[in-house]
């Protein structure tokens, strides 16, 4: 697979390591009221879609960027690649 890195352009997926569902960006507040229940959901529960999936890739043999890659799990088509830090910042700003 080729991942079109937002800073570096198209790179071979061999340079990356895969973590999983980008829902890991939505970390609940560890001091919140129902923290244990919300963290159980956050840590253990994952969707497994046949289709578009937002997921985290780490450019380990590259610039050490964490990326959010939107990939179709049925065809491996990649429709978007974003810097994870940008995604998190944008979400905070939107809240």
């Amino acid at each position, binding site marked *: 697979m080729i991942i079109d890195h937002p800073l570096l352009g198209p790179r*071979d997926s061999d340079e990356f390591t895969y973590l999983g569902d980008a829902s*890991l*960006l939505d970390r609940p507040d560890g*001091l919140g009221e129902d923290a*244990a229940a919300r963290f*159980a959901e*956050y*840590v253990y529960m994952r969707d497994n879609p046949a289709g578009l999936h937002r997921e985290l890739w780490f450019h380990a043999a590259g610039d050490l960027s964490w990326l959010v890659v939107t990939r179709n799990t049925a065809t491996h088509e990649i429709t978007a690649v974003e810097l994870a*830090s940008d995604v998190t910042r944008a979400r905070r700003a939107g809240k």
Partner: protein
Amino acid sequence: MSGAFRLPGGLVDRDRPLGFTFNGRRYRGFAGDTLASALLANGVRLVGRSFKYHRPRGIFTAGSEEPNALVTLGMGRNALPNSRATMVELADGIAAFSQNHLGPLGFDPLAVTDLLASFLGAGFYYKTFMWPKAFWERLYEPLIRKAAGLGRLPAGADPTLYDKGHLHCDVLVIGAGPAGLAAARAAGQAGARVILADEGFRPGGRLLAERHEIDGARGADWAAAQWQALAAMPNVRLMPRSTAFGLYDHGITGVLEQVAPDARAADKPAEILWRVHTRRIVLAAGATERPLVFPGNDRPGIMLAGAVQAYVNRWAVAPGRRVAILANHDGGAALAAELEASGLDIAAVIDARRDPAVVATRGRRGLRALTLADGRRIACDALAVSGGWSPNLHLAVHRDGKPLWRDDIQAFVPGEVLPEGLAVAGAAGGSFGLRDCLAEGGGAGRAAAEACGFTVPDAPGFAADNAQHPPAPIWELSPGRGRAWVDLQNDVTTKDIRLAHREGFRSVEHLKRYTTLGMATDQGKTGNMLALALMAGHTGRSIPETGTTRYRPPYVPISLGALAGREGGHGFKPVRRSPTHDWAAARGASFVESGLWLRAEWFARAGESGWRASVDREVIAVRAGVGICDVSTLGKIDIQGRDATEFVDFVYCNGFAKLPVGRVRYVLMLREDGIVMDDGTTARLGENHYLMTTTTANAGPVFQHLEFVRQCLRPELDVHLVADTDGWAQIAVAGPKARTLLARLVDAPFDISDAAFPFMACATLTVCGGTPARLFRISFSGELGYELAVPAPFGAALAEVLMAAGADLGVTPYGVEALNVLRIEKGHVSGPELNGQTAPKHLGLGRMASQGKDYIGRALAGQTRIDGAETARLVGLRPTDRTQPLSAGAHLLEPAAPRTQTHDLGWISSVAFSPTLGHHIGLALLNDGEARIGARLCAVDAIGDTEVEVEIVPPQFIDPEGARQRG
């Protein structure tokens, strides 16, 4: 002469004779031969034994699809089993050996299996070797293993070099037959970056085997001229001997290149696995001929008609003296005329559409005669068989495409929906006329170049005939008249297909798995279509209703060496050496692997009886005097930024806000599920500057985790991370005399007294007259201890200086084994306890977790349950009978309890012989461990078959109050 069966003409170079051996006998061939053509030229017809029945087998094809003629090339470590003789380019000195026989090739005692064939149908393993159960491991399996398998594993590691690489192109053309050459020519002329890859060592594909003319020139000459023209284009890369074996995501194609025999050298790779990044692909891979099914259709001398044609026309080799031809189309008569013109005797042309069927063949080691349904007997030593051609559509459907059935050519072609960027041209798409192939190739090459933005100049088409011989829907002759093979390599017969149908394995995927059809190294290229047709007949469905099995890469067998490339041995697992490696080796250290690192395990001295003597001496030296140990391999991560404190506070369960500059903290890093990820020490070197250490093994994963936290969870923080493990050499100096020793190294005015530099202090300073250094007062051994870091290039010198300066103190280098004994004596946890199942509370470290802040792992710390072990606590233990040893991994049970899992109370994680105490000690994770202190349990080691009674004690065996490290 190079062989009695050589004809005049052909595309071999008679000025370059080559010598080779087969089963030890010497033969001659020519440059341009394959091993198969050279064997046939010498009249060698029997080349191997079949997989299951050990039937004599000969060369069946002239190409990549060969099911029979598998040989081992070379000997010893260089042996390469299962090489297809039809694809081996002849070179001087080749030594080939036949496979799969016990005695000589001509007389194989295992051929007795052929006589038992009626008992050895599909699934016989599962039915026959069921009972008695105990026989399986001792009798059946060893016997089957001995009898099964094609070829033998070479003895020892493969010394051949393999390599891997990436290539990039606009247009990849797969196949250098007429369609592929026309495609490459069109795209190349347009200026596109073109790669043309072909399996063979000579371009032309079927043009080399058939007698066509293109623009008035002989086909092979036309192909050579096109190849030359392409070679002159700087934007075109020609790759002969290169098989495109798989289509992967995003236009990436796997291509395996074999280096030409005369370009090989011991220090150069013999095979290169290319990952070709493409924008457009033209699949012009041609087609594979399929045989017909009839009784006794597996004898040496029976060959695909197209292969006979190739041997005669390309290699000038007669496959026999008297050739019979059997086909279900008009090509049979055309071939007869061609062979007669080459001087071969034609014994018969049998048209399967109207002539009496073949009911039997004769000739144990090679075909001698055929019998027809009307009783006629035809003497012949070769039979050319054709049942039509199947397009090589594999790469068009590797990414989940569905093949489409075409009745007019009785074959599957690529479906209408093709992978993005891929076009099919010529026979691979079901177009068998030469003129059509050339036109489609040129059109596909032009379209591919245009899609990449190139302008394609107009070029005239090529003039050629367009003859085609569509086959009749005939697959099997004389059913029920004798054993008839469908899959030659895996010995699957028509009877096996019938049996599979009768037993309900009717889906093609089930048929394949039950009979092993198409599961051999040739992947059933010549047999699968026949089996589909037969199964369709049994079930009364049409062939498209029956469907095909899924096509998966690789298209041809790929050696494991090529897949590994240079990533074997230390290329896969490089060695990391600490800055003091050579110094330690010179002092007698032996080394142990710790991840990629080599670490000194102990420093043996002359006269020591074994490793324990060395380790005991080193431990006692530290406890009584002073020792030094290289700890450079621990991960070091430099953390700086205005928000460094907040960041560090968030990734550790410890509180950091109150840690002053110049102090170190012992730290636990948790995973978000509350389990300990890593431990270490983190020093606050400045207001906004921390130095984190990780365990040796976790340096990489921890760094990745920290970057995850920094970028994904806390991008608003101003903090930066640098992995700095290799930047600094770090040496632990431990023992009651450690301060005395270090005081001799530190430069004035640094004050190393306990008052000025207490336990858990850190500082940047200079040592030895100006060398920059960092000093940490931390202790893993429980003694007065320091770790001194200097820039890595000074590491070995620092070790020398410490040894010289401490000679009068008896300074002793110690290795990781002594380090481990010291930490077990002190009750410190390490890798065996931080095993991915333990939370802080299990380790007795629950009080380290801060209550007043959020941190990674906070919410679930203490919530995560490991089945049956949630009350586990770290304890110490010692044998009641102090002379007895302990073993790590042993489980703890009540002495009277049954020795079953249900009664398991915990397990021993670390053990050591404590020279300080004079007996074995251990650490364990024991359920309700604190409440069991003082109890006596049994340590059961089911592997070592030992049971030892142990006393449960607190984990700190020495100095539980910590007076020594604070001293």
